[in-house]
């Protein structure tokens, strides 16, 4: 069954977006990209005075090009809308894409997005022709304003703080987002630690997941990339198939009537 995810007019044949940071070697990164069958790769920008990267970026770009994987540069490290807007323009020039994962952090401990700066930056970048993927919290009002005021069509609410591996720590808020924003493309970004977390996100009706550390920091990153690939597929298929409604009492699944035996 054809089940592409359409973003910005582009058909994506995988609902797994993969980050490129923290892998033990460039070769492992390339093999993880292959195993994940991801449709989107995230990258970043840094100041040139910092040390080199031992070929990670070159290998990632090569792997992406060979497999038709889209690039999604981020604005990691930004604390203000002004910074994020400037970095987004640089990313567009360096990576040749108008897609931008907009990150504006407001708290150093949790790396929680700064909602006011995020909205301002998303609005300005939308006017400048970017397809903005804002990394946001699960706050419904913020998400609605990102859609209605900033013109975003994709939102990336967190499952949990970046790199924490906790999974979906507030599934009720995420359910509400999905129910209240049916027109939005919703991608869970950050905090996933296990394949089951990804499956849960897809089962809740989220359109895709973006993860990095869960694969990069696994004992076997390539095997974990494959596990997430399968979990995303399973979760999506489960959502499409329609999960049964949970209930608080037992219902026998085997259609016996009465007792099987009367003993004694």
């Amino acid at each position, binding site marked *: 069954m054809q089940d592409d995810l359409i973003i910005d007019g582009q058909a994506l044949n995988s609902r797994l977006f993969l980050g490129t940071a*923290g892998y033990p070697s460039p070769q492992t990164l390339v093999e993880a990209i292959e195993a994940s069958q991801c449709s989107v790769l995230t990258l970043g*920008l840094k100041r040139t*005075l910092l040390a080199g990267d031992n070929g990670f970026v070159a290998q990632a770009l090569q792997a992406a090009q060979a497999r038709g994987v889209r690039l999604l*540069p*981020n604005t990691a490290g930004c604390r203000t809308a002004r910074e994020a807007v400037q970095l987004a323009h640089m990313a567009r*020039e360096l*990576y040749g894409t108008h897609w931008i994962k907009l990150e504006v952090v407001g708290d150093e401990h949790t790396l929680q997005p700064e909602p006011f700066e995020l909205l301002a930056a998303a609005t300005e970048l939308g006017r400048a022709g970017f397809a903005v993927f804002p990394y946001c919290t699960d706050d419904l009002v913020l998400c609605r304003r990102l859609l209605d005021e900033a013109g975003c069509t994709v939102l990336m609410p967190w499952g949990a703080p970046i790199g924490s591996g906790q999974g979906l720590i507030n599934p009720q808020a995420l359910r509400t987002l999905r129910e209240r924003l049916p027109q939005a493309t919703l991608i869970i970004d950050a905090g996933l630690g296990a394949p089951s977390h990804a499956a849960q996100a897809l089962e809740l009706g989220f359109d895709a997941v973006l993860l990095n550390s869960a694969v990069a920091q696994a004992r076997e990153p390539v095997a974990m990339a494959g596990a997430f690939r399968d979990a995303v597929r399973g979760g999506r298929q489960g959502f499409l198939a329609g999960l049964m409604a949970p209930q608080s009492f037992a219902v026998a699944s085997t259609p016996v009537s009465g007792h099987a035996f009367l003993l004694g």
Partner: protein
Amino acid sequence: MSTTIQIQLDEQALSLPAHTTLAQLLEQSQRSPESVATALNGRFVPREARPDTPLHDGDAVLLFKPIVGG
């Protein structure tokens, strides 16, 4: 009028001839134009605008390049 200007390139002090452009600065520092993105005093300068962007005394130039990220 001074024939040289003092700027900061990636937080390093640098003395340049007056009227040096951003494009000439990159050439002088042996960076290919496509390999970096440029910011002048905190504002992005597109690649095509670098030849028409003269540097002034006290300017701060930052260079950015791709990196892995999540």
